[in-house]
């Protein structure tokens, strides 16, 4: 029997029992839909996160005090005060780090800001004028200037939520002063809302010159982070290496395992976040695969029933000249067609659901969520569902092919 006619016969077998065929593939449809949805949303999330990370500039390098924890008990270096002014001086030396374009020490703290009787718990971010460039900030009014940093001015740029909660009576923040830790800060700028989807949420932050933050907010001479830019993307890695060597020398460290700082490039961060999201995605895919397995068992069950029900048909076909192989391929093809159709429906359904979800997320949450059609998920879904047909259809099909024609013809 030719493949064309085996296919035709299998299709006829499926269409004569339409509603049962539809119910049979439901498990496969649900499984593939779930996988498509998870893979698509995972890819969307990854794109969103990576987009934001890359939005910070791929030439950005950050130094964090303390080394990366190597185990659960190794937290002592997490919050260390290892980054000092002398490190900044050393890093600024062109002889040490030739690829460095700019450096921004930052200081992160927290406190209560108040205006009149309004108070608000804020994060305080001590930075320099470079902050606006790196994070692409466009405040209403002014941003921190180099002079502000040098002269330790009491100026502040407010996040949108901070401004909203402090100035409740419609006052113009830009002509007023707010109080943080009993010190008055002149408001020089207000940031537009960044939205909930941003990696860095500036809405509840107050930005001040880092020098001012050191003096009046944290009271420490150390930095929370050093954020640097390499002159070009090509030298990011070599610059990061230079930074490491410079800081080791500055800290008098000879054993690299005793580093009390961590150098991170944007690429590192992107890779790490990428690893996390894909690990999460594949975990969810594994969970969704359970549905596929259950669907496969359903297929086997129905195929076994169909084989029994069609015993006479099998006997007849054999009497008319069908070989065992003809019968095997017919029933196997029926199972594979069934699951492949289920797979295709699942792919379409899953992609549509993912598209709707992407639409809902970008409109409802105001994040820039793009719909990703997961070609790898679709290819996997289709091949997996066809595989399920082969595996779970194999046993019933072999049962069918082994039927003796006379037993089958006698079957009532």
């Amino acid at each position, binding site marked *: 029997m030719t493949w064309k006619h085996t296919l035709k016969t299998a299709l006829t077998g499926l269409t*004569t029992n339409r509603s049962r065929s539809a119910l049979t593939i439901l498990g496969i449809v649900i499984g593939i839909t779930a996988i498509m949805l998870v893979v698509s949303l995972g890819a969307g999330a990854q794109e969103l996160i990576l987009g934001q990370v890359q939005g910070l500039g791929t030439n950005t390098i950050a130094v964090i005090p303390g080394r990366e924890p190597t185990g659960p008990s190794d937290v002592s270096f997490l919050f260390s005060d290892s980054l000092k002014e002398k490190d900044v001086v050393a890093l600024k030396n062109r002889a040490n780090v030739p690829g460095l374009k700019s450096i921004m020490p930052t200081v992160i703290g927290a406190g209560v800001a108040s205006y009149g009787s309004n108070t608000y718990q804020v994060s305080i971010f001590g930075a320099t004028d470079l902050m606006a460039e790196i994070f692409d900030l466009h405040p209403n009014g002014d941003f921190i200037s180099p002079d502000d940093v040098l002269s330790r001015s009491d100026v502040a740029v407010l996040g949108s939520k901070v401004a909203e909660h402090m100035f409740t009576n419609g006052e113009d923040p830009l002509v007023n002063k707010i109080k943080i830790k009993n010190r008055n800060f002149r408001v020089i700028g207000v940031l537009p809302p960044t939205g909930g989807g941003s990696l860095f949420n500036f809405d509840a932050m107050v930005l001040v010159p880092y020098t001012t933050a050191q003096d009046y907010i944290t009271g420490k001479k150390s930095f929370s982070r050093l954020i640097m830019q390499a002159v070009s993307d090509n030298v990011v890695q070599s610059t990061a290496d230079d930074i490491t060597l410079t800081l080791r020398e500055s800290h008098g460290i000879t054993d690299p395992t005793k580093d009390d700082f961590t150098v991170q490039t944007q690429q590192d961060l992107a890779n790490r976040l990428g690893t996390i999201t894909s690990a999460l995605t594949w975990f969810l895919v594994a969970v969704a695969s359970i549905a596929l397995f259950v669907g496969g068992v359903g297929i086997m069950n129905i195929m076994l029933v169909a084989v029994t029900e069609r015993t006479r048909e099998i006997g*007849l076909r054999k009497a*008319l*000249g069908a*070989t065992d*192989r003809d019968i095997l391929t017919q029933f196997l093809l029926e199972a594979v067609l069934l699951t492949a159709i289920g797979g295709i429906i699942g792919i379409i359904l899953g992609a549509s659901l993912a598209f709707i979800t992407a639409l809902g997320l970008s409109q409802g949450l105001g994040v820039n969520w793009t719909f990703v059609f997961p070609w790898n998920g679709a290819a996997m879904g289709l091949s997996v569902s066809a595989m399920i047909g082969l595996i779970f259809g194999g046993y019933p099909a072999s049962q069918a092919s082994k039927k003796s024609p006379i037993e089958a*013809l006698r079957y009532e």
Partner: protein
Amino acid sequence: MNIIEVTDLKKSYHEGADTIALNKVSFSVRKGEFLAIMGPSGSGKSTLLHLLGLLDVPTSGKYVFNGKNTQTYSSNELADLRNREIGFVFQSFNLLPRTTVFDNVKLPLYYSNIPESKWEEKAQEAVESVGLGHRMFHSSGELSGGEKQRVAIARALVTDPEVIFADEPTGNLDSKSGKTVMAIMQHLNEEHGKTIVLITHETSTAEHSERIIRLMDGEIESDEKVKNRLTANDEFVK
């Protein structure tokens, strides 16, 4: 020339104690002969038909079909032989449900070596030869019992086989439809030279044949020519 030659055919089943269904059966059938096999139920006539039709293999004995010693044939070769040289007509018709007359008749061609370009023509010819041209594209479920059996005969004819094996072909039919079926059988035998082997327990049906083999307890009881052969005249046979 003999199309069927069986020698000492034996078939036993192993169900607890050995049950012997057929024993020491020897006979031959001439090409173009019309043979009826009779016997009460349990006499082994169905078993014999299954063996003759190559649907089952004997426990021992020799079966030469159309010059081929079938003992040495693999199951695939037997399937091919069934397809090319044998046509079956069953008591319960065995048509595919929800399938048109035309497609039912076409079914054996799927498993044949006949080129696809000739399928339609062959199927159409077969359907018309049993007088069902007007029912060509009706679903098998819409037909009467007699019509169903005629479709089954058309299906058996479509590959132009040497022999037609009919297992109680009139068993599920009223006498009028039964007569029509027998008329077609006789017509096929006389006009087209088909060898026909028919199983029946009705003497009236058997007497349409030339020769009757009677089985009893798995052995041949008698093998004789029909003296007053019946002729089924019917409007379908011109």
